[in-house]
C-alpha cells in the first residue's frame, strides 16, 4: 500500500507500492523470515536423519532475501543461486513444493533431477538454479535485454554470493548490463564466506559494491539484516531498471550463521565466537524487536507464530515424504523435447533389464 493507504496488490503480488516497507505487510514478511528459519532447522535435522540428502541453510540471510523479494513484482524474473529458498517462498512457491524438491519425489517439478536447494518454479518466474557459481548472472542480463527488446515493464534480479564476484560471469554480466543498459538488479549477498574463504581474501577491494563503478553504473552497500533497508534499495534499483536507466549492483552485508552446507564443518576455519557475535544482529531478532515496539507483535503472538509455522512445515514435509517416488523412466525425459532414437533405445534397454530382474530400484 502507499502512504495514502490504498491497497495496490493482490496476494499474488508481493510488491506493494510506496517507498518504505508497507507497515501492514511487515508481520507477513516476518512470518516468511521465520518460515525460512524453521525450514533451515528442520532440513538440517532431516539431513542428519538421512531423510534428505543435502541442504544449504540460509540462516542469517532472511532479511536480505525477503526484503529483496518484496521489492519485486510478479512479472520480474529471478535468477537465483542455491541458497534462495526465502525468495522462492515470498514469490509464492508453496512450502510443499520446496520440500518436494528437497526430497526429489514424483511431485517435484524438476523431476528429481537436481540436488536439494536447486529450485526451479516457472510460474513464479524463479529460474532453474545450478551449482556452478555465477552462471546465472549473465543469464539474468540476457533475460533483461529480452524484456527491453519486448518493451516489457519488468526487470530481472540475480542472486549470488561474495564468492561469485570472482567468477567470469560476474564480470561479463556486469559489463554487458552496463553496455546494454539492461534492466537488471545484481543482488550480492555478501555472507562473508565462500565455504572457508573469508570475504577479505576473495577480493581486496574495500566493498563488493564498488566493483560496479568499473562497469559504469551504481553500486550500493546495504545492511542485509535490515529488511526495510534492503527493500528500499532493491525497489529503487528496480525502478531505475524499468525506467531505462540501467543496472545496479547491490551488496547486502549479512553473515552466514550455519555451515556452508551439510557437507561442511565450519569449525575448521572460523570460531564459534565469531558466529555468536554475528548472531547479535540476527535479522529475525532485529525485525522482531521492531514489531514488538510497534505493537504489531507481542510475546504470545510471537510464540504462536513460530508454533504455527513449525506445524505447517512439519505437515508440508510429511506430505512430501509420503508422495510416491519418481518413476525411473523419468530419467530419460526432458533430455530433449523429443527423445532421440538412441534415448528411446536406452529406455527400452532399461525396461529389458528390469524384466530380467535387474536395475530395479
Amino acid at each position, binding site marked *: 500500500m502507499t502512504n495514502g493507504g490504498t491497497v495496490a496488490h493482490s496476494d499474488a503480488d508481493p510488491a506493494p507500492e510506496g517507498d518504505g516497507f508497507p507497515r501492514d505487510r511487515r508481520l507477513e514478511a516476518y512470518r516468511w523470515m521465520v518460515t525460512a528459519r524453521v525450514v533451515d532447522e528442520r532440513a538440517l535435522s532431516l539431513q542428519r536423519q538421512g531423510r534428505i540428502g543435502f541442504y544449504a541453510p540460509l540462516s542469517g540471510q532472511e532479511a536480505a532475501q525477503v526484503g529483496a523479494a518484496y521489492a519485486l513484482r510478479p512479472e520480474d524474473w529471478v535468477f537465483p543461486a542455491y541458497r534462495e529458498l526465502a525468495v522462492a517462498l515470498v514469490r509464492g512457491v508453496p512450502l510443499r513444493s520446496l520440500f518436494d524438491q528437497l526430497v526429489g519425489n514424483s511431485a517435484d517439478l524438476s523431476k528429481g533431477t537436481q540436488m536439494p536447494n536447486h529450485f526451479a518454479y516457472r510460474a513464479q518466474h524463479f529460474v532453474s538454479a545450478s551449482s556452478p557459481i555465477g552462471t546465472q548472472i549473465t543469464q539474468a542480463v540476457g533475460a533483461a535485454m529480452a524484456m527491453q527488446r519486448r518493451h516489457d515493464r519488468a526487470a530481472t534480479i540475480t542472486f549470488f554470493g561474495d564468492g561469485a564476484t570472482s567468477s567470469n560471469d560476474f564480470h561479463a554480466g556486469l559489463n554487458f548490463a552496463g553496455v546494454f543498459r539492461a534492466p537488471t538488479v545484481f543482488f550480492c549477498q555478501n555472507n562473508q564466506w565462500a565455504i572457508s574463504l573469508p570475504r577479505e581474501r576473495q577480493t581486496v577491494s574495500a566493498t563488493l559494491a564498488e566493483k560496479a563503478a568499473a562497469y559504469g553504473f551504481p553500486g550500493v552497500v546495504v545492511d542485509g539484516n535490515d529488511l526495510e533497508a534492503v527493500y528500499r534499495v532493491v525497489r529503487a534499483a528496480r525502478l531505475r531498471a524499468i525506467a531505462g536507466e540501467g543496472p545496479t549492483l547491490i551488496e547486502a552485508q549479512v553473515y552466514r550463521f550455519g555451515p556452508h552446507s551439510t557437507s561442511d564443518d565450519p569449525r*575448521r576455519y572460523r570460531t564459534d565466537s565469531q558466529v555468536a557475535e554475528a548472531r547479535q544482529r540476527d535479522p529475525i531478532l532485529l525485525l522482531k524487536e521492531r514489531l514488538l515496539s510497534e505493537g504489531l507483535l507481542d510475546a504470545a503472538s510471537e510464540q504462536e507464530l513460530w508454533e504455527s509455522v513449525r506445524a505447517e512445515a512439519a505437515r508440508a514435509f510429511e506430505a512430501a515424504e509420503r508422495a510416491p517416488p519418481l518413476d525411473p523412466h523419468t*530419467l530419460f525425459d526432458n*533430455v530433449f523435447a523429443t527423445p532421440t532414437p538412441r534415448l528411446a533405445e536406452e529406455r527400452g534397454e*532399461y525396461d529389458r*533389464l528390469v524384466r530380467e530382474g535387474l536395475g530395479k530400484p
Partner: protein
Amino acid sequence: MSELTIVQAVNRGLTEAMRQDPDVLILGEDVGINGGVFRATEGLFKEFGADRVVDTPLSETGILGAAIGMALYGLKPIAEIQFLDFIYPAFDQIVSELAKFRYRSGGQYPCHVVVRAPYGGGIKGGLYHSQSTEAYFAHTAGLKVAIPSTPADAKGLLLTAIHDEDPVIFLEPKRIYRSVTGEVPDGDHRVPFGSARLVREGSNVTLVAYGAMVPAVTEAAETLANEGISAEVLDLRTLVPLDEAAVVRSVEKTGRAVLVHEAARFCGFGGELAAILAEKAFFSLKAPIARVTGYDTPFPYALEHVYLPNPEKIAHAARSTVRGG
C-alpha cells in the same frame, strides 16, 4: 607400507612431492586451512604454509591460468578443482592453452601442470557433483589423463604425474575415496603411465574399467566366477597414454570384451576402446563388444541408482556376451 584410503594416499603423494621439491605448490579453493572439501590437502597448510598451499579466489580460470604461468616460469603447480563438474570455467585455459603450449611453441614452452579433480557419481551429488567427463580431456591432444582406483595407484600415479613433463588431468574417484583401503608403499612410490593393471586373470571375457568402476567390475567378476565364467579384469590406470597392447592382448585371449564406465555411452571412452578392438583384435572376437555405461542423459539426482552401472548390470552384460543373446 601403510594401510590407507585413496584420499589419504593422495594426501601422502602430495606431501611426498612437496617435501622433495620446494617448487611444488598447490592452488585451489578451500585447500588451505580447510584441507580441501574432501580433505585431500589436510595438514599441508600447516606443514608448508600459505605460500605453497594457496587458497585462491573462486575462479577456476584464475587457478588454471595462474598455474600455467607458474609452470612456464619453472614452478610445479598442482591445481585442485573442487569437483570435476566445476572445471569448465577453466576449460579454455586447459584445452586451448595448457594442452597446446609445448606444441605451439615448437617445444620452447613446455607446460607441466597437474590438475587434480574428484570425479564421478554415487554420492547423491546430482548433476554438478557427479559427472565423469574424462572423454573431453582424453580427446584433447597434449593432455595426459590418469584415474587411479586403488590407494597405491593414487599415490604412485600422482607422483608420476608430478614428475612428468606434460600436463596431467588427474581424476580421483571420490565415491571410493574412503571405502577402498589398501597397502601403500612409503616414500617416492611411482606407478608408470600407460601400463594397465591386471586385476584378475580370466579366460572367457575381458572386463575393462578405470577409477570407481574397478571395484564394481571386480565384484561382477566374482559373481561370474561362481557361475563358471572366468572374467579377466583390466584397470586402465591412465586413459592417455593408453595401454592398448594390454587391452588387445587380453581380448585376443578371451575373445570377448565388456567395457565399463560411468560416463554416458555416446562418445564415451568405451567407444575408443571398442574401435581399437575392432581395428586390432577383430579376428579374435567371438561375440559383439558390450558396453556398460551411464545412459545418455545428464547425471540425475534421485535416480542415480538407475543411471549408474553396477556389478549386476556388468555381470549381466558379461553373461550375455559369453552365452550369447
